[in-house]
C-alpha cells in the first residue's frame, strides 16, 4: 500500500470539534486534515502540489543550487576561520631571549602582479555570468526544444572557454607572484606573515583549481549531456562556485594588501 489519501470526513471532524475538553493536553494536533497542498515552494509554482520529480522544469536545478549554496556557506566559514587565525596571529607577540615581550610581525609586501590577477579573476566572473545567463535564455531554450540544434550550449560555450582562460591566467599569475617572492627570498617558512600569505593564496588557489575542474566538467557536459537541464545545472553550479571564489578572493586580497 502506498498512498495515504484519506478523504476528508465531515463526521469525524464534527466529533473532534465536540471534544473541547481536550484542549491543551497536546493529545491531538491542531488543524489536522486541512489540505495544505499549495505554494509550499514559496515562488508561487504550487511546489507542494505535485510529488517530487514532477515539480516543474527547474526542480532538479533548485536542488543542486541549494546544495551548492549550503556547501559554499560551509566554505565561507572555512575562510572566516582562516582569516580569524590570521588576525590572532598578527596581534600576538612572544617573549624574546631577553625576556621581552615583542611582536615581530613584518608584513609581506604583496607582489603588484596580484592586482592584475584580481582583474583577470573579475573578468572571468563577468564572462561566467554571461555564460550562465546564456544557458537560461528562453528563446534559445525554445529553439533547442524545437530541435534546432543546441543554441544554448553553442552560445554559452565561448564564454565558458573565456572563463577558463581567465581563470588559468589568474592561477598562472599567482604562480608568478610566488616565484617573484621566492626570488626575494620570501618563502613559506620565512616569517609569520609569509606563512599566511602563502597559506591564504595556496588554499584559495586550490579552491580555484577545483573550480577549473568544475568548469572543464561543465564544458564537457555541454557536449556529452543530452538533457538541457543537466547542462544548465552544470553551468549554473559552476558559476555560483566561481563567483563565490571571486568574492572570497576580493576579501582575501583586500586583507593581504591593506590589513597586513
Amino acid at each position: 500500500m502506498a498512498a495515504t489519501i484519506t478523504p476528508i470526513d465531515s463526521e469525524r471532524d464534527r466529533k473532534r470539534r465536540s471534544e473541547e475538553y481536550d484542549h491543551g493536553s497536546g493529545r491531538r494536533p491542531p488543524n489536522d486534515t486541512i489540505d495544505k497542498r499549495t505554494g509550499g515552494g514559496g515562488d508561487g509554482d504550487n511546489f507542494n502540489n505535485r510529488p517530487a520529480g514532477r515539480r516543474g522544469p527547474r526542480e532538479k536545478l533548485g536542488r543542486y543550487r541549494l546544495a551548492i549554496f549550503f556547501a559554499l556557506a560551509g566554505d565561507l566559514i572555512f575562510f572566516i576561520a582562516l582569516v580569524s587565525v590570521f588576525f590572532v596571529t598578527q596581534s600576538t607577540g612572544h617573549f624574546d631571549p631577553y625576556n621581552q615581550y615583542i611582536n615581530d610581525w613584518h608584513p609581506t609586501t604583496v607582489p603588484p602582479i596580484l592586482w592584475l590577477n584580481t582583474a583577470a579573476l573579475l573578468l572571468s566572473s563577468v564572462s561566467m555570468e554571461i555564460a550562465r545567463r546564456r544557458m537560461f535564455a528562453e528563446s534559445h531554450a525554445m529553439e533547442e526544444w524545437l530541435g534546432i540544434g543546441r543554441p544554448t550550449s553553442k552560445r554559452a560555450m565561448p564564454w565558458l572557454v573565456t572563463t577558463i582562460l581567465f581563470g588559468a591566467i589568474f592561477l598562472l599569475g599567482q604562480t608568478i607572484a610566488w616565484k617573484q617572492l621566492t626570488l626575494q627570498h620570501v618563502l613559506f617558512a620565512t616569517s609569520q606573515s609569509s606563512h599566511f600569505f602563502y597559506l591564504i593564496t595556496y588554499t584559495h588557489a586550490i579552491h580555484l583549481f577545483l573550480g577549473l575542474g568544475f568548469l572543464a566538467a561543465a564544458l564537457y557536459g555541454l557536449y556529452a549531456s543530452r538533457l538541457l537541464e543537466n547542462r544548465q545545472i552544470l553551468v549554473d553550479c559552476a558559476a555560483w562556485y566561481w563567483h563565490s571564489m571571486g568574492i572570497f578572493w576580493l576579501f582575501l586580497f583586500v586583507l593581504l594588501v591593506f590589513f597586513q
Partner: protein
Amino acid sequence: MSASTSTILNLPDQTTATMPKRNYLNNEHGLLSWLFTGDHKRIAILYLISITFFFFVGGAFAGLIRLELLTPQPDLMASDTYNKMFSMHGIVMVFLFLVPSVPATLGNFLIPIMLGTRDLAFPKINLLSWYLYLAGGTFTLAALIFGGVDTGWTFTTPLSTHYLNTNVITAATAIFIAGFSSIFTGLNFIVTIHRMRAPGMTWFRMPLFVWAHYAASVLMVLGTPVLAITIVLVALERTIGIGVFDPTKGGDPLLFQHLFWFYSHPAVYIMILPGMGVISEVVSTFSRKRVFGYTAVAFSSVAIALFGFFVWAHHMFIMGVSNYSALVFSLLTMLVAVPSAIKIFNWAFTLQKGSITFETPMLYAFAFFGLFTIGGMTGVFLGALGMDIHLTETYFIVAHFHYVMVGGMLMAFMAGIHFWWPKMTGRMYPESFSKLSAVTSFIGFNLTFMPQFILGYLGMPRRYHAYPAEYQVLNVLSTAGATVLGVGFLLPLLYLTWSLKYGAIAGNNPWQATGLEWQIQSPPLTENFTEIPIVDHEAYDYEWLAHKTEQEVTTVG
C-alpha cells in the same frame, strides 16, 4: 487489540505471514550491487555494519582502559601506552561512531521515507559519503597500527604539534576525510528536507526526527569546515613549524583551543540532536500521543543548533581566557541548556496521561531521559565558573560527557535500532532478550559512570593511568560496571543477528505508529512508495491512523 493489554505490539499471524517477495534487500544480488548502490536504505545498512565494527573497536580500548584502572598501580601497560588507549578510544568513538551513528544509519534509512520521497536528493553523493567514511576509518586503523596517537581526542597543542612519538598526521587525515563524509551527509539531508517533501508534507507536518536531523545537518555543514582548517594548521605546525600555535614563534596555543572547540562544541550537538529525534518518535509511539508541544520541540532543535555555536569557550575556563569572557560564556552555556530542558519537559508531558507501554525501545528511551537529564544538569554545573575550576580535567568531566554521549546518544541509538529493526529487516527482535539487554546496559552504565562523578568530585584527574590507593574502591566499581555494560552491548549484536533469520515476521506496522515509514511494507521496496503519498494529516495523529486502519479492515476484510 484490547485496551488492557500491556503491549501495542501487533504482529501478523505467524502461520500465514510471509516476507514481502520484493524488497530493497533482495531486489538485486551480489556484493557489487551493495558496493555500488545508490539506494539510501542499502547505504544505511552499509553504514550500520561499519559503525558497529568501529564501535566494538572503540569498546575494546575502553575495556583496556578500565582494566588498567582496576588497580592504583600502573601494572597493565606503560604510561604512554595508556595515553594511546584513551586517545584512540576517544577518536574512534567520537568521529567514527557517534557522529555518524544515528544520522548515517537511521537518518539515511528513514528521512526519505518519512518525507514521502523515493530517495535522498543526491544518492551518489550519499554513497560517496560512505566511502569517505571508510577511508577515514582506514586511516584511523593505520594510525593505530603504526603505533597509535597519544594526544587525547582533543589533539591539544603543543602536545599534538611538538611531541614526536605519535601519529598525529595520520589520525588528522582520518578526521579530515571523515569530516567530509559528514558534510556530504548533511548537505544531502538539507536539500532533501527542503526540496523533496511529498505533497502536503509541510515543515510543521514533518516528524520531529526530521527536524532534529535538519538542525544537526546545518551544524555539520557549517561546523566541520572549522575543524578542517584546524587540522590543516596542526599538520603544518607539525611538519614545517609555521608557529601559529607555538608561543616561542609568536603563535598562540589558546588559538587552537578556540578553533577546536568552535567545532567540537557544536559537534556534541551533532551527536545528540539526531538521538533526540529518535526519542521523539519512540515516546510518541509508546504513549499513543502526539508529542506535546510539537512546535516547541521542533524549534528547540534549531535553537540548540544556533546557541551551540556560542558556548565553545566553556571548555577553556581555566586556560587563561579573560574573566570577562569566561563570565559571558558561562551565562551562554547555561542558556544552551534551556532548549534541551524544553525537550525533556515536553517529552515528560507527552507521557502524562498517555497510554504507556514498555517495549524495548521505550525502555531505552526511559534510560535516555534519566541519563541525559543527569548529563545535561552536570553540564550546567560545569558551566558555572566556580564549580568548573574545581571539577575541570577530573573524572567529573568524563562522567558528564559519558552521561550525555553514552547515556544519551547511545541509548537513543539503541532505542532507534530496536524501534525500526522490524522496518529495516522485516523481522522482530526477541523481546525478552532485548529487554534484558536494555536493563543490563542501564544498570551497567550507572555502575560505570556514577562512581566517576564522585571520583571527579574527590579530585581524581582524568587521563592518568595510576592513582592514589584511596580511589580504588570506586574505580573497581566502575570497572565492574563496564563489564556489565559490555555485556549489555554485546547481547544486542547477538540476538539482532539471530533475528535476521529466526525473528518473527513483523508486518508493516508492528507498533501501530503513525509515521509514513510505517504505512509501507517492511522491509520497504527499493523505491519506497509505489505511489507518492499525499499527506493530509499532521504528524503523530493517532486518530488518523485508527480511522485509516478501520477503513482498511472494512474494505479488505
